[in-house]
């Protein structure tokens, strides 16, 4: 979503590697070395001392240095900023929890979170269901032109989201929009897509699905192709019906992939920015405004005075909400035997 392209998002993919989430098909190679052993079991290392390995530490240091400077430090700093009142120019004053209190009471905050909920109930179910459907269809054994269909579905993923967003804005434009033009031919409309509080969701939702379906479908395809053919053979010999094979074998084995889609689309929805920014600018009257857009507006000051404290508080509230929801999704979708 903001992954913009999905490829761009800081992905949670590796998390699936942890045995807890149960994606068994995804293995960290050389698991032996991955087991944390006690220092005593590695006398060779101890004898040579840590300094002997400075090359190794140097070679992996860029990640830790960049992370510390550009991500950890800003996060820590914004925690402090969230307790201060600051416009970025004059001196900051300490205000305690005032920013949080203000942001939580602010009607616009409530608006952006109800908007997020509206995106959520449409985009998250579809973000899991549609890739599953298309992954399964593209994996059917009789299918011809498989590569062509796969390419067509994947093509939007590599396309500039804001570029197509501008096309979307015109497609859904009022009387002269192409969508209304096509609907008029079958005697419907015209609808005021961008000005109606409920309809304004449609262009944003559809653009999001259009741009993310390809990547998610490819993930599902990868998961389906990783399933061992023997399981299907065995089931068929036992006389299982096609429906039962899908319901009792394919679907359970695809659970980790579906959890992955659930979580990535949740994070995508909660950090949505480009689509409303380009298509509706958050309007009409904030009906499509997203949390990150609101944060950008008040933090950079593109709508009135710069309110860095409020923006920081909002970013922590959003992050907390995201962590709570994602962890809840993890726990709910965990296998029964693991509880």
């Amino acid at each position, binding site marked *: 979503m*903001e992954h*913009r*392209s999905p*490829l*761009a998002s800081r*992905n*949670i993919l*590796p*998390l699936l590697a942890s045995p807890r989430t149960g994606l068994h098909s995804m*293995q960290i*190679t050389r698991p032996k*070395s991955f087991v944390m052993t006690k220092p005593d079991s*590695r006398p060779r290392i101890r004898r040579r001392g840590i300094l002997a*390995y400075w090359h*190794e530490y140097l*070679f*992996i240091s*860029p*990640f*830790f240095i960049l*992370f510390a400077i550009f991500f950890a430090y800003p996060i820590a*700093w914004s925690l402090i900023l969230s307790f201060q009142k600051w416009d*970025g120019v004059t001196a900051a004053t300490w205000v305690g929890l005032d920013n949080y209190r203000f942001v939580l009471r602010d009607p616009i905050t409530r608006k952006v979170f109800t908007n997020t909920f509206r995106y959520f109930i449409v985009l998250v179910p579809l973000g899991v269901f549609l890739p599953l459907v298309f992954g*399964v*269809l*593209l*994996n059917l*054994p009789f299918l011809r032109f498989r*590569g*062509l269909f796969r390419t*067509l579905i994947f*093509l939007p993923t*590599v*396309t*500039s989201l*804001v*570029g197509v967003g*501008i*096309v979307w804005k*015109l*497609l859904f434009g009022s*009387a002269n929009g*192409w969508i209304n033009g096509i609907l*008029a031919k079958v005697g419907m409309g015209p609808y005021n897509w961008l000005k109606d509080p409920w309809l304004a969701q449609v262009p944003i939702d559809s653009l999001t699905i*259009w741009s993310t*379906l*390809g990547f998610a479908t*490819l993930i599902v395809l*990868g*998961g389906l192709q*990783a399933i061992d053919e023997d399981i299907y053979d065995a089931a068929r010999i036992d006389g299982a019906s*096609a429906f039962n*094979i899908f319901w009792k074998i394919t679907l359970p084995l695809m659970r980790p992939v579906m959890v992955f889609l659930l979580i990535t689309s949740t994070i995508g929805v909660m950090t949505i*920015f*480009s689509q409303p920014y380009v298509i509706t*600018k958050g309007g009409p009257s904030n009906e499509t405004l997203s949390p*990150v857009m609101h944060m*950008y507006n008040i*933090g950079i000051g593109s709508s009135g005075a710069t309110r860095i404290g409020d923006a920081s508080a909002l970013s922590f509230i959003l*992050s907390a909400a995201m962590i709570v929801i994602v962890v809840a999704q993890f726990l709910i979708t965990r296998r029964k035997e693991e509880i």
Partner: protein
Amino acid sequence: MAAHEHFSLPPGTAAKPGRGPRIRQWLSQSVVYIILVVAGILCLAPFYFLISGALMDRGEMFKVPPRLWPAAPIWENFRTIFTDYHFLTYLRNSVIISTLQTLGVLFFCSLAGFVFAKRRFPGRNVLFILVLITSAMPSGQTTIIPFYLLMVKFNWVDTFWPLIVPWWAPPLSIFLMRQYISAGIPDDLIEASRLDGTGLFGTYWRVVIPLSIPGLVVIGVMQFISVWNEFLYGLLILRSDNMRTVTVAITELSRRTQAATVYGPLFAGIVIVTIPTIALYFIFQRRLTSGLLSGAVRG
């Protein structure tokens, strides 16, 4: 290809050949094709409107009822976007940022991936787990404000650096490079090179890099595409017009008050923006698809 692909939803009749209802099989297969063709058309339709719009003049684009294809294509739009709207500058900016970021990612991630995959040193597992954990943190878009303030401190606002340097070591790419090197390069080769007296960096440069080219291509192309399309941070950092990347530039053009007047050239610009990434995808399609199919899911 089809030979090793599996039944995921075996059509009811396919598994039991010879049992009468061929019609049903034909019917269910046609439904599948219809769904896929409709989806394919929906995936392509925006490109059609994009190209069509790029060839229209202003009056034509806002006709009621709307026209689906220009009466007479106006190729002029593709020149206007360069002559009147400095599009070459934006393209140059995007090329610089995307190239420098991608090269950095390839270098730092393969270096770290190599060390995590092939070297033993105290704390390796803990450090690698740290890398994995950060990739799961919901940062990115939520830290734009402090990131911006930090860039103000560095005096980096309105420069390319904030869009290049911080992104040089994405954890996911380190993870993928580690997987690739760990599975793709035999330990013996590394050992042999070390026994020859080659230093660690020499081994990396002369043994690991040449043998990881396929993995580097996949990560490099994916990285280039995602930087090229990046928008939020560009919008945040690039304040003056001649510093903008293409994505920021087209968005700003589309938000002008008299935006309607520029839509023809603007659409031509969007066509130009989408060409490099689609071209890259087609050139490396085979490798990207197999890399994503196996690499992304199985790690």
